[in-house]
């Protein structure tokens, strides 16, 4: 194994701490501080996968978030993570990773066969073929199998994630020299500063260019000092391994902090989250996000061993890795020179083709001094090699236009680096609507230094196109002062001029696609977007086909759609498109930058909202009692309510039957605590009720209760419940379980916005009251055992009365209301005593075999009586009249109550409306499905006209047969008189592929005269 390791003291890896890791089943050694990419390169691993469309060999191109190729699957089992860029994976002991492409094997990829036919697979080829309806699913299957990189885990995640909500005066994004200096200036002045950096270590580009001299100090010393001071400032918080991935309206930053992924599996904490999502609302944001070097586009530029010039430099200086020993580089600018010098000094042979005929003389001298073979006026028109780069073909290019002016040598090499200039990292700046502008001198889309200062967003350094260290640091001072001025703070410390040893930069050459002397598309493939296999020719083709908007070009070719989000490719793509369109780059414009800047796990986004804390589960005070008695629970809104109570040997039907019989023949008890309860007080409470309910409340006396229908302005039933008059100016309203919050907000809305003059206040007391409904012929006897201060006699305590008293020793409100049609009492106590009340009632009822029942039995009992459930028997399209509940509407109230006006509209007032009825199947054993459709004839030849549907359906133990409620067009006219089961209209119910004959009857199946509830 040839080592590519070059040990030098500036490297940020710890050569004293070797680390073993596994890649694609082989074991390797790296060092603490390595990334997976640097360690693989150090071990001579070049090819990390095959390309998406053509199956071409691919290797590492970049050194950070910009990496398009090296997508790896890290770890296995529940810990596995798909698609991590090897350039961002910190090496730890025992790390296991594998490549994600190359099938069946890296050495032989089936797609490389298709690659040979690549001329027949231009951009958008799939839109032009596979058009057979019969064959497309098969083609699609093949396409799908071929696509994709890593694999989703096959097990649920064992790690946890959390969120942190922060507020800061200033957030500085980016811990490079500019970010650090700005944070220091602001921190020194006493501002609350939060500094975010995505890397393990602060320093940004300085970590890759350690030879920089700042104010006479070596770069690293400058870095050490500034970090030390920052850490000493009490109001400065520094987060490393924290990637700011989105900037939202009004200065909200989302950032993800990596807390565990860099640790060996065995050292990861089980109590700490894996990642933390920081949501930081900042008064001021300083974007010091730097810039990413883009490569030049040339033939075969995707061979393994071809990297960006800055990545070559980073691997050498930061990680002590020489990607190759014989290096050829090409550049359009000054930036590549330092790396070339460093590589040459490290013992590599370096040829640097500068596409400019007149390079920066200072750099040229330094390069010569370092031993770099500088070739002004040359470019690399193509790379040679099959599985890795073997040589570079140099050509002479014209001084004034991007065309070949002469031949050049072919130089053998084992690494090739190119620099096409820097692309500012403007992503965050653009997330909330900012647009970068094209700077023709810098050849970059840049953000303005004062960003959008009016809203507190500032930019500094590379993001503004200020690429030199010295001017960037001076800009950091300026921006610092602007922020300080905006916050009214005085600056601390002098803003003296900063000196560096950088030569003054000279302009870059305006070149993106290196010419090869051929018409685009005729030569070797020149890739713009590596991850999506988008070539320069593809962009030209898109334009020829009239995909002329940059968004069309992007979407047609898939340019910039990869997990690198086009960090290396976009500007080259825009430039090539501009050339093909004959437009300027700013006229072509950019595509829209969208979060995330770099990918974020779903787990982090979800944070604590999973498992037990996904969404609230609301419990009643009696919950423990229910659990102890075998309750099976149902979700009703956020509440958990007992659906039925299973006894040994029972199934669900048997349990419901037992519960219903108890309530009808003996005594049952139900937990009704979840009902919404609203306390209303005020002189105008009664008038308020008159306005928000369809019926009248004028006559309701203290001590009495009344049922009400609440409508929306569209006239449709939205909620219902019983309201009790506590005193003339005090009412206790109940709402449905699911509607409680909505109703309270609805009432407050009307009161606050429309009728503020009404003297009424309302407060939710839903949680205050625990409610036990004691139901059945024996309920009075049960209650009497635990309540001595209320006269429970029928003559004194009538149906729809309520009384205050003491039950089981606890102060209680007792309502004689019934949702079952039986004699029933709803006992309400302070919820702290709900459990006690429940157990006391069960104990008191033991001799009567009191039976707790759940929502299933409750639904059945009420359906036998034809009582509606809002949301089950109604669906937002039912008026009270549709429900045959005209008795609950008072059209004579002076105020036009909510919803009243809508009744008069032609459709709402018209015939043919669906109305609530009862249904009886001809075969009494058949229980219709809830949701069965009602049709006129038994034949089913679609389309079949539907008259309505079954809303509720049960087998009634009381009647020994099935019953159903339904809404049916003109149903009221169709139904038989109350109590008579011989319906006059026969219809059919359809479900599960079968029709069943039904009769339309009254929805009141049991005790139509209401004798039981009045008993």
């Amino acid at each position, binding site marked *: 194994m040839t080592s590519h390791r070059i040990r030098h003291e500036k490297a940020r890896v710890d050569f004293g701490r070797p680390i073993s890791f596994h890649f694609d089943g082989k074991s390797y050694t790296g060092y603490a501080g390595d990334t997976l990419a640097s360690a693989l390169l150090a071990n001579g691993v070049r090819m990390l996968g095959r390309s998406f469309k053509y199956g071409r060999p691919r290797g590492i191109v970049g050194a950070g978030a910009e990496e398009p190729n090296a997508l790896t699957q890290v770890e296995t089992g529940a810990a596995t993570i798909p698609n991590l860029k090897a350039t961002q994976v910190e090496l730890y002991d025992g790390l296991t990773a594998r490549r994600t492409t190359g099938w069946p094997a890296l050495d032989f990829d089936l797609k490389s066969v298709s690659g040979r036919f690549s001329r027949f697979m231009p951009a958008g080829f799939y839109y032009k073929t596979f*058009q057979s309806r019969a064959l497309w699913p098969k083609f699609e299957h093949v396409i799908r199998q071929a696509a994709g990189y890593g694999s989703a885990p096959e097990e649920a*995640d064992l790690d946890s994630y959390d969120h942190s909500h922060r507020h800061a005066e200033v957030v500085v994004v980016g811990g490079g020299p500019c970010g650090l200096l700005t944070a220091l200036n602001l921190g020194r002045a006493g501002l609350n500063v939060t500094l975010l950096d995505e890397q393990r270590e602060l320093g940004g580009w300085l970590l890759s260019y350690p030879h920089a001299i700042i104010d006479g100090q070596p770069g690293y010393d400058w870095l050490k000092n500034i970090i030390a001071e920052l850490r000493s400032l009490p109001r400065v918080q520094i987060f490393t391994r924290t990637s700011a991935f989105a900037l939202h309206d009004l200065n909200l930053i989302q950032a993800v902090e990596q807390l565990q992924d860099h640790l060996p599996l065995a050292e990861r904490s089980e109590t700490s989250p894996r990642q933390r999502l920081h949501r930081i609302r900042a008064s001021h944001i300083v974007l010091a996000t730097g810039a990413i070097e883009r490569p030049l586009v040339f033939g075969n530029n995707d061979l393994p061993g071809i990297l960006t010039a800055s990545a070559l430099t980073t691997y050498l200086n930061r990680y002590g890795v020489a990607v190759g020993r014989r290096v050829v580089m090409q550049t359009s600018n000054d930036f590549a020179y330092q790396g070339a010098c460093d590589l040459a000094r490290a013992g590599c042979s370096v040829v640097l083709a500068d596409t400019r005929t007149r390079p920066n003389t200072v750099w040229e001298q330094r390069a010569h001094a370092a031993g770099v073979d500088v070739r002004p006026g040359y470019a690399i028109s193509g790379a040679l090699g099959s599985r890795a780069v073997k040589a570079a073909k140099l050509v002479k290019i014209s001084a004034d236009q991007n065309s070949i002016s002469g031949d050049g040598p072919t130089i053998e090499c084992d690494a090739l680096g190119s620099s096409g200039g820097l692309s500012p990292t403007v992503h965050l700046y653009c997330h909330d609507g900012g647009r970068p502008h094209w700077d023709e001198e810098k050849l970059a889309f840049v953000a303005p230094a004062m960003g959008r200062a009016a809203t507190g967003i500032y930019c500094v350094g590379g993001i503004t196109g200020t690429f030199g260290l010295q001017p960037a640091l001076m800009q950091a001072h300026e921006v610092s002062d602007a922020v300080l001025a905006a916050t009214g703070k005085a600056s601390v410390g002098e803003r003296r001029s900063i000196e560096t040893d950088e030569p003054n930069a000279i302009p870059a050459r305006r070149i993106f696609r290196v010419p090869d002397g051929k018409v685009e598309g005729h030569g070797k493939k020149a890739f713009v977007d590596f991850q999506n296999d988008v070539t320069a020719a593809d962009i030209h083709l898109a334009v020829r086909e009239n995909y002329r908007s940059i968004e069309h070009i992007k979407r047609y070719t898939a340019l910039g759609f990869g997990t690198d989000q086009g960090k290396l490719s976009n500007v080259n793509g825009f430039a090539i498109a501009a050339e093909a369109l004959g437009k300027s780059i700013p006229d072509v414009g950019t595509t829209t930058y969208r979060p995330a800047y770099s990918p974020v796990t779903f787990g982090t986004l979800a944070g604590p909202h999973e498992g037990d804390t996904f969404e609230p589960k609301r419990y009643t005070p009696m919950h423990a009692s229910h659990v102890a008695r075998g309750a099976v629970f149902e979700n009703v809104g956020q509440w958990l309510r007992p659906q039925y109570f299973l006894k040994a040997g029972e199934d669900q039907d048997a349990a419901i039957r037992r519960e219903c019989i108890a309530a009808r023949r003996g005594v049952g008890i139900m937990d009704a605590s979840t009902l919404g309860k609203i306390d209303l007080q005020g002189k105008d409470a009664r008038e308020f009720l008159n306005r928000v309910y369809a019926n009248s409340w004028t006559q309701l006396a203290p001590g009495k209760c009344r049922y009400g229908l609440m409508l929306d302005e569209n006239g449709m039933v939205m909620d219902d419940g019983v309201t009790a008059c506590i005193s003339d100016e005090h009412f206790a309203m109940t709402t449905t379980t699911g509607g409680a919050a909505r109703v309270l907000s609805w009432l407050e809305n009307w009161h606050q916005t429309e009728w503020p003059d009404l003297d009424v206040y309302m407060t939710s007391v839903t949680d205050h009251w625990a409610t036990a409904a004691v139901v059945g012929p024996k309920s009075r006897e049960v209650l009497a055992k635990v309540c001595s201060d209320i006269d429970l006699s029928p003559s004194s305590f009538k149906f729809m009365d309520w009384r205050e008293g003491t039950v089981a020793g606890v102060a209680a409100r007792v309502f004689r209301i019934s949702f079952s049609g039986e004699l029933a009492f709803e006992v309400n106590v302070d919820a702290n005593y709900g459990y006690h009340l429940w157990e006391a009632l069960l104990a008191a009822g033991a001799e009567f075999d009191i039976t707790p029942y759940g929502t299933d039995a409750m639904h059945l009992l009420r359906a036998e009586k034809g009582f509606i459930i809002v949301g089950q028997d109604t669906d937002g399209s039912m008026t009270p009249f549709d429900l045959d509940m005209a008795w609950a509407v008072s059209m004579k109230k002076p105020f036009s109550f909510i919803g009243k006006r809508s009744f008069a509209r032609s459709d709402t007032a018209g015939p043919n409306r669906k109305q609530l009825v009862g249904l009886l199947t001809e075969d009494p054993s058949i229980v219709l499905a809830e949701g069965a459709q009602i049709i006129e004839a038994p034949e089913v030849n679609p389309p079949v006209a539907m008259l309505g549907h079954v809303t509720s359906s049960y087998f009634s133990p009381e009647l020994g047969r099935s019953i159903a409620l339904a809404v049916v067009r003109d149903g009221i006219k169709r139904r038989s008189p109350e109590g008579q089961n011989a319906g006059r209209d026969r219809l059919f119910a359809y479900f599960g592929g079968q029709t069943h004959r039904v009769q339309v009857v009254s929805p009141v199946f049991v005790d139509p005269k209401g004798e039981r509830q009045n008993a």
Partner: protein
Amino acid sequence: MKKDYSIWSLFTKGLNYNEGWDPAWRSAELKPSYNVVIVGAGGHGLATAYYLAKEHGVRDIAVIEKGYLGGGNTARNTTIVRSNYLWDEATMLYEHALKLWEHLTEELNFNVMFSQRGVFNLGHTLQDMRDIERRVNANVLNGVDAQVLDAAEVKRRIPILNTSRNARYPVLGASYQPRAGVARHDAVAWGFARAASKYGVDIVENCEVTGMDIVNGRLQGLQTSRGSVRADRVGCVASGHSSVLAKMAGIRLPIESHPLQAFVSESMKPVLDTVVMSNAVHGYASQSDKGELVIGAGIDHYTSYTQRGSPHIIEHTAAAIIELFPIFSRVRMNRQWGGIVDTTPDACPIISKTKVKGLYFNCGWGTGGFKATPGSGNVFAHTIANDEPHPLNKAFSLDRFSTGHLIDEHGAAAVAH
């Protein structure tokens, strides 16, 4: 129409370095007058123009677009196509569309990659299951393929779905429409643009409507950023911007424009081969042919034209997806975006004449417009050509808000995506 796109053409053009391809559609300059001008070159607008030309013989048509064609909600949706709606009117309209979808690739000679991989609508509560039963029975009676599946069957078909009874909202079952699926959204716009262009339709991009010329209640023409244009009839299909256009005509619509967000994961190997939608936990997901999980979120509650929403909506959706698919917790979001959806009070569209003669609106598709694209264009073309609604869009007129004849897909169909 000549079938220019085929294996053969790929082969012959490929031999010639792919230089021989014609423009997919013709870029046109705005002429001074047209028979019909369609405002909005999204899928619906281009389809409208296509069917106007093809089925109604209208020859003088322009589609004008303030940005680039297919750049509005067509470019931003999560591409689900299904027709299993609750109410007859909606079902028939979407089923009409679905039938067109099934032959769209061949009809347009452009592979819109319509993939009938089925759609599951999960039920998590007893009421969800009642609604599913109701909807499926209605679908079957309307001739739409639909099934009710219990939780065990859902688990069998989607093994990675969390069907644990301990989930916060356990999966109790699902409705399933086998013929439903997804399509390649951009391709739909491009395919219609290409086909319409072949019929002579002028497609004018970067042309924003700035005013309407209305005389005596009759539309005469439009003012645009590229000059004025006379038109006998104008059909507005401007998704999020319908209210803005309506205002130019002095009309108020029953519409609010809300952000609707979506996101995709990084590209992965196939792991989900169908479409799963859950209203109770507020998330829906499919996996694109490229391998990205395509995930839709709920709408932001406030109105906005910014094409971006608030992150807590995305966070909630990610949580919902993990609740449904615990194995996706470590999968990463690659990109998120937002569109602007026109929501109506009854969650049903408006395809209607207006009180201004010659002015028609096709809007209010809420979160569910993409799936209707060919059907919407087809019936809207009919409405414009005949100045009378097609039988399938009669119920979707504006006057339903005065008569009270709302269709109300909120009620039980719940998910209107």
